[in-house]
């Protein structure tokens, strides 16, 4: 039982609050050039840059878990394909709840 390394749910608005910390976000892949960076759209419709090398081809929606490097970029450790159908607004709402009123359940 270990809660020392949580990954905070973020969208692009919340990403800037957690720079340097471990975060998780779902993005809709816009451009994936295999050259070490993936451009995606966050759950609140902003552009994010994900640095890292995915181990498998990416689906439309991908969850990245990694360290927040800047206001708009994440250095990814793990890419998880979330398929081609996904409800971004629902995940966005969870991000907001998990960071505000219900932070104590997550962090």
């Amino acid at each position: 039982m270990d809660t020392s390394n949580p990954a905070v749910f973020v969208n692009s608005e919340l990403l800037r609050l957690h720079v340097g910390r471990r975060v998780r976000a779902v993005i809709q892949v816009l451009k994936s050039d295999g050259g070490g960076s993936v451009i995606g759209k966050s759950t609140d419709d902003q552009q994010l840059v994900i640095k890292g090398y995915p181990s498998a081809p990416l689906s439309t929606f991908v969850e990245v878990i990694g360290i927040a490097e800047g206001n708009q970029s994440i250095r990814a450790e793990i890419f998880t394909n979330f398929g081609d159908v996904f409800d971004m607004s629902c995940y966005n709402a969870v991000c907001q709840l998990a960071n505000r009123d219900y932070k104590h359940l997550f962090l």
Partner: protein
Amino acid sequence: MYGNSQFDGNAAFSGGGFMPSQATQNADPAFSPAKSREAQALLPLTVKQISEAFQASDDKANFLIDGVDVNNVKLLGMLYEKTERVTDVSFVLDDGTGRIDCHRWVNEAVDTKEMELLLNGMYVKVHGHLKGFQGKKQLMVYSVRPVTDYDEVANHFADCIYVHCYNTRLRSQDAHQVPGHMQNSTFNTPSKGYQSTPSNNVSVQYNTDEVKGIERKILDFLQQPSCIAKEKGVHRDEFVQYLNVPENKILEAIESLESEGLIYSTIDEFHFKSTANG
């Protein structure tokens, strides 16, 4: 009596009866079939909530979260460190809020098959029983299923939030308090911070003695630097306004605090200060 129930009731679920070291542990009365249905309800939880779960009493081995008995829990996260042994499979579940050890007893081919399909790094839904073992919390898992529709991730965490809200509001209604009270303390926990203990401890407190809860708040309020600075003390009406509690309850609380010597009246019988600040 309880020692026997571990071996006959729900043996398929407990599995713990087979391990010699666990057999010497106090039996878990939660497995008694006579328990009401409510005590066996399934709770969706995050690992963080589990890590803060309050042990009800030493001999019961039952946990409390948000004032509710925790038996069966539902978690969703990534599976890591899968280790297959002869009669069981163990793994670590990481749901983004923490990591918890899990054990799945494999008695039949169906169980083994279920576990074989799982790979490290996969998102899974886990359903099991929360157990404390040698001071650590572990999950005795009944089923593990891979996640196929990833909307389930958001759904699970929304579920955790909903159930948490429901249980904490239920506690506040049980204690016959002004509903705004419990909401304030739950939602403002991060900022107001006068609930310095985890929320599940607070709900136990409200259940047993509601006046004590108000007294605590009055004391905390009086110990704020702005109140300490006031030489004349704080007027009784300010408590009513600040805490949003009916005046008669405030009066009761003040009387009790005064008789215990925790507050004293200053310029008149309406103004008070805390004795513990110097």
